[in-house]
């Protein structure tokens, strides 16, 4: 996660400032929980899944959706994953 990332939580949405691109992104609840989990430090994929599914109700988010979400966050430069290797 890049240094200087800022996240502002508003109810079931959040806004994040990307210190790499200086762009601001709107996040849904799932992405916000994933990012909040990562703001405390590196997490395993299972930890992130637990953090998301433990907070989002109803818990209709699949593991595949969270994988896809992390890929999107990585494409934005907001997180760094080693997801592909851990899934092999």
């Amino acid at each position: 996660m890049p240094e200087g990332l800022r996240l502002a939580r508003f109810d079931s949405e959040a806004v994040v400032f990307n210190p790499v691109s200086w762009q601001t992104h709107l996040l849904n609840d799932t992405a916000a929980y994933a990012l909040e989990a990562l703001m405390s430090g590196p997490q395993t994929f299972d930890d992130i899944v637990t953090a998301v599914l433990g907070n989002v109700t109803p818990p209709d988010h699949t593991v595949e959706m969270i994988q896809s979400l992390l890929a999107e966050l990585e494409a934005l430069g907001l997180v760094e994953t080693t997801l592909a290797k851990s899934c092999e």
Partner: protein
Amino acid sequence: MRVADLEARELEARLTGTGLALDFGAVRARIRADQASLAAAIREVYREYPDQPSRGFFEVNASVERVTGIRRVLRSQVKFVVDGEAPFAPFPADTHLPLLEWGLNWCIANNCNQFLLLHAGAVERSGRAVLLPAQPGSGKSTLTAALTCSGFRLLSDEFGVVDLNDGMLLPLPRPIALKNESIEVIREFAPDALIGPSFPKTRKGTVAHLAPDRLSVDRRGVPAHPRAIVFPKYVPGEPVSLEAVSPARAFVKLAGNAFNYEVLGPAAFDAVRVVVQGSECFRLRYGDLHDAISAVRRLVGE
């Protein structure tokens, strides 16, 4: 003494000499001009501003000057000059005040990065400021003008000036540029409103400027707490409606519509967060100005 109290000759001498100091609150400007008709227009639309010494520091030093040489022979023109440079192509001389106003806006938007500059109208009533961010053509200026003619304090028609330290809105009252049909709408809405001369051949059609009222000018040093963010949209014939906007979406719209958000980066993010956290956010659609004003009044607790 106020600008309106200056004799015409005295004002012209000031504008061609040391310059006229205009304290807008958040920003101070020193302007010069070499056309008597522009001096007369400035006297009308800046009538309530205090006459101040033209010494000291000014964020904006600008002038509107006659163009000399071959261009002037073809058609009388004026140019906007700031810090010795003319950033725009000359305008027809009979559109000097719109050129001055657009030029001042340009200077503020490009140079005043000590503030976050949202693209929004801003008014205040009962200590509660309302931001009116909107795209051109949405009726922002008309609504801002109507609100200031209805007892709201004008903070700005163009800039939501946010203090980066505490998220407060800083006043920057300046004449409100009314365009085309809006001029007559405000004349009918507030027959006593002081509207300067009309300029019919500008790039945006006919433009006239509503002079800020005395209270707004006199309180230009008093910041206001942002308490509501209203995205207005004038839709002819439509009944008034206020629809809640999620704070996060309001945040993104504010940031995307700001003049210098991407220049300031994290500081701007923090400032927008404070503004949004302290505000209710709405989308306002209206076809009648009186209804829109009643809706905004309710938002400030009236």
